[in-house]
């Protein structure tokens, strides 16, 4: 188990390394940030000075080596645009995004699994068909449009929920959280629902497919033949067997939500990392983009690791071995 975790972390470092290389090359191909950052009346000398100040006068491979050398010491560089270190800039925005992402995934699980089970157990009932029909909407309606509609209905027409910002926050261990205040919670609802809608649909469909497959298995019929109550058959025998695909997808989606909740954050002016990424990309602010993606890669690796460990708890036939790719 420990060997397994160590191996996975080593693999993660390789991925991070490869990713920095790709981002370095990619951003360089798009253009020079200096062209965007300098004022229009800057002359050649001033242009050269700006290049030198950002370290962009060196050849690309040397820039990369400088970056690597600093990165090993934990310094991921300063933002080209605002001159502050990239890593703290991102970390500061992280709680807002985490809060939003976790709220959305929480909604997806507590709404998606029960509805999916219902639809799986009673596929021909009106409720079952309605759930599946609704999940198609959840899948196909574009997030930005749903976000705007939510604002229109709940913030404009009904006027019951605020549409922008995080609202009142409280500090917990130095981290600002909205979820603990009534005002903050009210601000959280719309963006979280917006972000959760697609995930709910996904979880519903996964759960339903799992239930449809599992209830035809002999062990479910045998459990009934042993005289177990229907509640136990469904909540223990069926549910535990369908959790593996659900946990896998929820894990991957959680990473996705954290890293790329850009649309919802933008619509609801949620001050999270997604908004920062978009702004940085627009300015070709390479240090921020690189640092952001490094954090994202590490986060995906950690989430996948947690999912793998959860597997062993869910399915006793799975044992984590040292050799795992």
């Amino acid at each position: 188990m420990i060997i397994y975790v160590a191996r996975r972390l080593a693999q993660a470092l390789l991925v991070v390394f490869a990713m920095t290389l790709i981002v370095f090359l990619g951003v360089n191909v798009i253009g020079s940030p200096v062209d965007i950052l300098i004022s229009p009346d800057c002359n050649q000398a001033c242009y050269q000075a700006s290049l030198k100040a950002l370290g962009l006068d060196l050849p690309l491979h040397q820039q990369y080596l400088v970056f690597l050398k600093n990165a090993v010491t934990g310094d991921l560089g300063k933002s080209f645009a605002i001159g502050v270190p990239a890593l703290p800039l991102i970390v500061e925005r992280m709680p807002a995004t985490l809060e939003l992402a976790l709220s959305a995934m929480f909604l997806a699980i507590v709404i998606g699994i029960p509805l999916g089970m219902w639809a799986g157990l009673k596929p021909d009932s009106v409720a079952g068909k309605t759930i599946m029909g609704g999940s198609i909407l959840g899948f196909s309606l574009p997030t930005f449009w749903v976000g705007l509609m939510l604002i229109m209905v709940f913030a404009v027409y009904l006027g019951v929920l605020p549409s922008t910002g995080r609202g009142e926050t409280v500090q917990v261990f130095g981290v600002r959280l909205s979820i603990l205040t009534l005002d903050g919670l009210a601000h959280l609802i719309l963006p979280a629902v917006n972000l959760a809608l697609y995930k709910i649909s996904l979880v519903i469909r996964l759960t339903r497919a799992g239930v449809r497959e599992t209830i035809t298995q002999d062990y479910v019929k045998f459990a009934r033949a042993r005289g177990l109550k229907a509640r136990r058959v469904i909540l223990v025998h069926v549910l535990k067997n369908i959790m593996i695909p659900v946990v896998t997808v929820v894990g991957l989606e959680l990473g996705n939500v954290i890293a790329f909740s850009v649309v919802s954050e933008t619509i609801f002016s949620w001050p999270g990392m997604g908004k920062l990424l978009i702004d940085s990309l627009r300015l070709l602010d390479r240090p921020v983009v690189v640092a952001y993606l490094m954090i994202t890669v590490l986060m995906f690796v950690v989430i996948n690791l947690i999912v793998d460990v959860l597997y062993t708890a869910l399915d006793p036939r799975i044992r984590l071995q040292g050799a795992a790719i």
Partner: protein
Amino acid sequence: MAETLRVENLRTSFLTKWGEVTAVDDVSFSVDAGEILGIVGESGSGKTVTGFSILGLIDPPGRIKGGRILFQDEDLVGLPENRMREYRGKRIAMVFQDPMMTLNPVLRIDTQLIESVLAHDKVDRVTARQRARDALGQVGIPSPDERLASYPHQFSGGMRQRVAIAMALLHRPALIVADEPTTALDVTIQGQILFEVQKLCKESRTALIWISHDLSVVAGLADRVAVMYAGKLVEQGSVDDVLDRPMHPYTSGLIGSLPSNNIRGQPLRQIPGMTPSLLNLSAGCAFRTRCPRADAACLESPPVSVPASGREVRCAHPLVGGGS
């Protein structure tokens, strides 16, 4: 002997998109306490559906359309689900065909045994565990205390079937329906399990319905045998009578097809033709297209004759005096 189960004119059918399929048609038989009844037939002959009907485990689109299932003089047909649940596992237990599939792979053996105990008896977990351990010991699982904490995949097929049988025995049921429980096992394991099941039933006077397609297993195990073909019971009687003097041409054909009844070096005898699809069964005897004795009379539904007490045959031209 006290009668444990009497099935009268049972009809179970499934509504498919191609029409209604009557999987079990007008089937009647009975089992006494301590008696072993073998139900023999090919795949699709309705023997498994008969077993599930007794436990009330026919799921839509299937349903029991008629007949009575009298268990200790109470009719189980139409009993509400919560009443039926109290019978399942408690007074009527079932063992399934494939031991690799019947235990939940993600739950430990003790979890599954203890939940079986608690489903019917209000006892504390320690007592339940004790009973679970005793049940494992009873079916010949070595060091049951340690094995309780295992998962199904840590057992071999034979051991898993023993665990399933232990679950069936937990509440000392009056009737066990065993649906081909040894088909998926090695012959040596099959022999051991047959022997033990037979012993347990005789000791506790449990009635046993042993569903199988293997005539030789039934011959060695059962007291009486019922032969099913295309949803109908075509012949029943004591094992010796039916196997030595079959009266239905189908039974006779089955016995004739056993490799041991064939001459070495000759092609194995078989019944010509194939089992008809249950979807388009025409009126009359379902076996007539494969039967050497069929004639115009077989276009009518064949009559059931009772040549001797406990002996029944559904044929217009039964083989008199038997012989295959």
